[in-house]
């Protein structure tokens, strides 16, 4: 019973401490998307439409960051939802004709921010691949696609591996054992 409670507490701590990294990663993405959109504006309509994802992400991040600073972290469900919104917005931007051109889009760099959970990483890879496959006018160079997917997946896999190492170190520290 105690072991279950300890695991639950550890899981909650993971969510709490992991949040701040997601929040900071999202600020970087917002800055990047804002630059990408504002530097591409040619017509007033572009600016209005382009502002939508920025405003959505900023509002979401203000709320989550504010809660974190007040030490009232948002729950696990909301974190999954906000991460899904990130993925959807970046994917839509990559897939959009005017800005992204599917596989030719350089906005895929935004997908490179930390995707550390294996399931989320796999989903990200799949979504990115599908968008590149089905974007109108997108021509895939498969070798380049392989390297992109490898590095994206690599960041997810290596991050998850590091998290496991850190978890065992924490447990060892709690048990009073600091040896490798």
């Amino acid at each position, binding site marked *: 019973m105690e072991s279950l409670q300890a695991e639950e*507490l550890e899981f*909650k*701590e993971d969510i*709490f*401490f992991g949040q*701040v*990294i997601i929040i*900071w*990663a999202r600020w*970087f*993405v917002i*800055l*990047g998307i804002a*630059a*990408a959109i504002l*530097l*591409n504006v040619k017509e007033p309509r572009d600016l209005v439409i382009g502002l939508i994802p920025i405003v959505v992400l900023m509002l979401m991040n203000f709320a989550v960051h504010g809660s974190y600073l007040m030490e009232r*972290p948002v729950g696990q469900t909301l974190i999954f939802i906000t991460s899904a919104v990130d993925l959807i917005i970046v994917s839509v931007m990559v897939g959009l004709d005017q800005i992204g051109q599917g596989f030719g889009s*350089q*906005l895929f*760099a*935004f997908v*490179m*921010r*930390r995707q550390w959970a294996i399931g989320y990483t796999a989903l990200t890879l799949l979504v990115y691949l599908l968008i590149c496959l089905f974007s109108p006018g997108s021509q895939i160079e*498969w*070798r*380049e696609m*392989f*390297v*992109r997917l*490898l*590095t994206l997946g*690599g*960041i997810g*896999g*290596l*991050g998850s*591996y*590091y998290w496991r*190492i*850190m978890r065992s*170190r*924490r*447990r060892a*520290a*709690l*048990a*009073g054992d*600091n040896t*490798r």
Partner: protein
Amino acid sequence: MEQAEVPQTQEQDKDSQEDLAHGQIVIIAFRWLIIVGALVSTLWGLGLGEPVSRQASITFILLIYAVVNFILLARYLKKSPSLAGLAYTMSLVDLIIITVVVAIQKDIFQSYVYVYYYPALMVLAVAFPTSITAAYTVGAIVVYGMMASLAGGAEFQQVFARLLMLAAVAFCGSLYRQIEHSRRAEKAKISSPGGGSVRSL
């Protein structure tokens, strides 16, 4: 006062050494990833009509790189003490290799090889102290930024997005390392006699 500072410094050194010891296996795993990726990519190039002699040279270099990585892995598995200098140098070599491969591409700006910078910076950010991570990241951003910007057909917006994400990956990795460090310290404090309390969530 000075006497109290000495054990604290020793403790910090020990912490850094342990971080390095645990972080280096992630760097080694990253290196296998880059070796496999580059090898597949090189062999793929044969099917696309790229010169065989060039591909053979690249394969040879990759195999040497694999041997070096295997030696580092063997050291880790034997639990040999981590050598900070060696770890820093090897990570610098990783970045230099990526940079050289980017630089020899026909079209530097269009080349996709730069994506290897992302996992490279991520793994060193979680293993090395912030100052070293910052120095390597700034170096990679400046060098790659200059190469990509000066290349023909470069677009500012795209170069900016790439560089911003390089900084983001390194920043988040380093932040994660610091958070894990504090969490571990807190756990160690709890386990010690008369330990403190857990932060309420």
